[in-house]
């Protein structure tokens, strides 16, 4: 058995907005083992980025527990937080807005080391050049600014900044969504190579199902703040029980002209996460919805070993 590095227990994050309480993350329970990747998929506004931020303490959680390496880190003091921040890193979607436009690559990579209290000098130079090699940035670029670089290289800086702290756990928030496919493949390979070498654990947040399928050990599907289905990648794609997951999978256009398009049509759009009523949040768009779905909130149930689903009537065929 590999060790659990991170465990989330009924994690919740509500925001107070003028119209009421916005349930951004509502009851996520999951375990991630060391060296594995948890893929988090869902559409805009389903709470996947908020989840990543709550896990990293960039946002306080409303309820639930975060257990990291066996230790409850739900509420931590500043000293502990600094310690955690060194081990846990975040890679952002847009490498342009997440980098300081007035810093060269060298400065971007040096900044986290300086914050940790390391001294400038030959040793730091070596670390920075080694990191540039690791993430595939030519050393001659060391004094260039982000605006001089293309999106792929910028994202490599973002990855370098995260890795230079020698973390054990990284939240990747849509790290390849802004990139072209040929560059996207380069970055995904880089993330996989580094993971293998350093036994890193990833939470990989994305809306791209083909990417998530390729990179993840386990996948969690989110809808309006809730985890609606969770299973290993193989299991989820072979046995999809939740009607939303099925619709989501069928909506992806496949680059194959010989395949018959067989699409599940979802009616309407995502409803509001503000003051949701006690019911299935997907009911208004679900073709199988009954009165029970509209009046009773489904609980997570383990439908097969390691496969949980939040649905009153999981699809068994």
């Amino acid at each position, binding site marked *: 058995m590999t060790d659990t590095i991170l465990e989330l227990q009924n994690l919740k994050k509500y925001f107070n907005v003028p119209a009421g309480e916005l349930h951004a993350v509502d009851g996520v329970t999951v375990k991630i083992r060391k060296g594995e990747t948890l893929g988090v998929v869902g*559409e*805009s506004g389903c709470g996947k980025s908020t989840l990543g931020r709550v896990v990293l303490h960039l946002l306080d959680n409303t309820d639930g527990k975060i257990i990291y390496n066996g230790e409850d880190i739900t509420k931590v003091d500043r000293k502990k937080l600094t310690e955690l921040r060194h081990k846990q890193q975040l890679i952002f979607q847009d490498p342009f807005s997440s980098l300081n436009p007035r810093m060269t690559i060298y400065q971007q990579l040096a900044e986290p080391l300086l914050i940790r209290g390391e001294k400038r000098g030959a040793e730091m130079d070596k670390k920075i050049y080694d990191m540039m090699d690791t993430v595939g940035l030519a050393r001659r670029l060391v004094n260039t600014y982000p605006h001089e670089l*293309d*999106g*792929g290289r910028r994202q490599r800086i973002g990855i370098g900044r995260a890795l230079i702290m020698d973390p054990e756990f990284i939240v990747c928030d849509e790290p390849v969504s802004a990139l*072209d*496919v*040929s*560059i*996207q*493949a*380069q970055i*995904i*390979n880089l993330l*996989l*190579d580094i993971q293998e070498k350093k036994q890193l654990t990833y939470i990989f947040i994305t*809306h791209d*199902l*083909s*990417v998530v*399928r*390729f990179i993840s050990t386990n996948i969690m599907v989110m809808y309006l703040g809730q985890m609606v289905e969770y299973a290993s990648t193989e299991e989820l794609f072979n046995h999809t029980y939740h009607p939303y997951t099925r*619709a*989501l999978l*069928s*909506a*992806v*256009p*496949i*680059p*194959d*002209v*010989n*395949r018959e*398009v067989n*699409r599940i*049509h*979802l009616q309407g*759009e995502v409803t509001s996460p503000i003051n949701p009523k006690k019911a299935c949040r997907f009911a208004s768009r679900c073709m199988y919805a009954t009165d029970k779905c509209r009046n009773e909130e489904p609980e997570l149930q383990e439908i097969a070993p390691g496969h949980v689903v939040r649905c009153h009537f999981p699809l068994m065929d």
Partner: protein
Amino acid sequence: MTEIKNENPLLEVKDLSVYYVSKEIGTCKAVNEVSFTVNKGETIGLVGETGAGKTTIAYSILQLLQTPPGKVVNGEIIFNGKNLLDLSERDMQKIRGKEISMIFQDPMTALNPIETVGDQIREVILLHNKITPVEAKVKAQEMMEMVGIPGERYDEYAHEFSGGMKQRIVIAMALACSPELLIADEPTTALDVTIQAQVLDMMNDLREKYDTSVILITHDLGVVAEMCSRVAVIYAGQVVEMGDKYQVFNNTRHPYTIGLFDSLPSVNTNQKRLKPIKGLMPDPARLPDGCKFAERCDHCCDACRSHEIPMREIEPGHFVRCDFAENFRRNNS
């Protein structure tokens, strides 16, 4: 799988070259001798990565290029027998929105935030038809219903709609005068997959109903597979492979197109790593001589860099810009 030869295509783009000229970066060759045709009622996909020149081609057709720095330096754009490049701005205005219309990528910025969506649709109708404002309003409401938005929402503003609904309104506006040609520039890229599926299906239905020809600009090969009958793959401002979609998807010949397919995570195989295309697209201000893809191609040789590579027809209707196309084929079993 032979292409039906149409003697009079609706649109014929011939040897189009567009440069952006500025003092700082010099001459940026965004589009280089691009030729393609659009037949009546067909959907052609222009596929390529960021900076390939897809949007510049679209803007040239509608003459929306900002000049300077943009300039059409060569070529013809024949639409219904007329060369659009010869028309005055006044004549062009009669064509835009009436005969050719465009859907932009980002519906948030394509709509006016301080005018009701209904009035925005009505404006197009009033501009191109001799009817009263009241009749135009009725027509605008019909268009809204057509794209699945209740006509009662005529008086609402753009911010009151979700992203998918805004894109429907943009589509309603584009189709309001039943154009013969619709240019859709990444129409679903900003949308979630389930909403994308709704919008694509709707576009397909409307296209059939109105018999509109469509130029669909996208980077998503999956969208092309579902929507298009023909495809042109654009790289560094050139068409590198073109044919009907079965030819391009099942008998892929250009190393760049093969590379694009191979970069995608495959569903069936148990591959451990993806197969990216090495390197980057060349800077359009410093295009190399010869094959523009040579730098990134695993098969390139001295001959590739020594001369401009011509388009060749390797099977009826299937064109490839590679001297060695017969040697390559994508393994897509």
